[in-house]
């Protein structure tokens, strides 16, 4: 018991602080959840920026399906492969008008019906390092080794989810998440990382809001 408490205390102490903001704009929320239909979460990667990290998309999907086991989240790669090449960065529909044009293609419409996809959630944005500094040097020799110094960095996450209702072919909501956190590594012989889980916090914030939209339980 003491060990568990010590471990929990260590995790809390060794985490940097993260501030997060979540905004939502929902036009048409389903009252009883999404039922038998499935949902797919896709990253926007068409721009010249770094694109939404696949890890973040996986994290949001896992967060939703873990909290409400009745929601079936189709994996991003599975969805992209089964509809190749129509959801690649070059070809993915950027608007509902593009989506309507796309499903005029008979094989695409048939596959979408097979997948029973009700909601397509597009997530754009990324986590970026906005500041870093300090210095730390480590040495190793026959007599031993160690590090000395202090390093820090700040990460900022900014993501926006756009929810498309595939059945009604309409945009039904938007969720915006920003998170900011600073991480530190003080080192006197042993480096002690105090990492701020910026992307993870943004993922949880986004997941919770989407869950409220998709699930009848929340």
């Amino acid at each position: 018991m003491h060990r568990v408490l010590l471990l929990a205390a260590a995790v809390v102490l060794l985490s940097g602080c993260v501030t997060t903001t979540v905004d939502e704009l929902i036009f048409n929320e389903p009252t009883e959840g999404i039922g038998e239909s499935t949902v797919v979460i896709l990253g926007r990667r068409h721009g010249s920026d770094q694109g939404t990290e696949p890890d973040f998309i996986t994290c949001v999907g896992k967060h939703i399906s873990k909290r409400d086991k009745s929601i079936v989240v189709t994996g991003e790669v599975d969805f992209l492969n089964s509809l190749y090449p129509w959801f690649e960065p070059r070809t993915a529909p950027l608007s509902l008008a593009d989506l309507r044009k796309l499903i005029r293609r008979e094989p695409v419409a048939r596959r979408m019906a097979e997948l029973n996809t009700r909601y397509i959630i597009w997530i754009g944005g990324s986590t970026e390092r906005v500041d870093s500094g300090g210095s730390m040097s480590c040495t190793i020799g026959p007599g031993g080794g160690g590090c000395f110094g202090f390093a820090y960095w700040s990460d900022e996450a900014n993501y926006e989810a756009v929810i498309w209702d595939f059945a009604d072919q309409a945009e039904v909501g938007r969720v915006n998440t920003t998170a900011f956190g600073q991480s530190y590594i003080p080192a006197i012989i042993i480096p002690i990382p105090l990492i701020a889980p910026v992307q993870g916090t943004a993922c949880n914030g986004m997941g919770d809001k989407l869950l409220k939209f998709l699930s009848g339980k929340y």
Partner: protein
Amino acid sequence: MSALTISDNVRKFLHYTAWLTIVLLLSACGVKQVVVKGEFPSPLVSKLPLTLGVWYGDDFANHEFFDETTDRAESDWKVTTGQAQVQMWDILLGGMFENLVHLKTRPTADSRNQSIDAVLIPHVEEFQYALPKQTNIKVYEIWMRYRFEMVTNGGDAIAEWSMTAYGKTPTAFLQSSEAAVNLAAVMALRDAGAHFVVNFARVPAVQEWLQRTTKREHD
């Protein structure tokens, strides 16, 4: 006796750590090699009712890119894409055309195969890569330029056009630079396939050929 054992173990540990550090430092200056490997899906399109021949020249089937760095702190890169190129184009063309026939040689008037409607000959004309170290962006990028020749079963030109493909992947925790370059190359190959599917019938000379051939098939 116990203190002596601990001291020996510490010395052994430091000895191995020092060797490991030397090995790691030396490996940073070697050649980083990537043989591109990935899975490529079949395109979700209605197949064209045609028989396409495809000929992969040696340059294409064994395509590799070698970049010798001028910076002593960085590594040379060798990226082999040939095998993945053939794999991707076989799946893509197999999904676009009713029949796909592999040719062992470039088609000529003497080696005419009457069952083939046309032969596609792809070439990789240019290959470029960018690493986060070079661009200061957390992204690995691969860019390729293809040239396609489309010829009759007797080797006469039907169409010739160029096409670019681009793939990028963000850096990820615990991902090696080799794995990231592989993923960027797979993304670039997928993009090449997407670009080809969307634009193949829009190439003016191909469009004319398609109209002629499908009309002839109907007659």
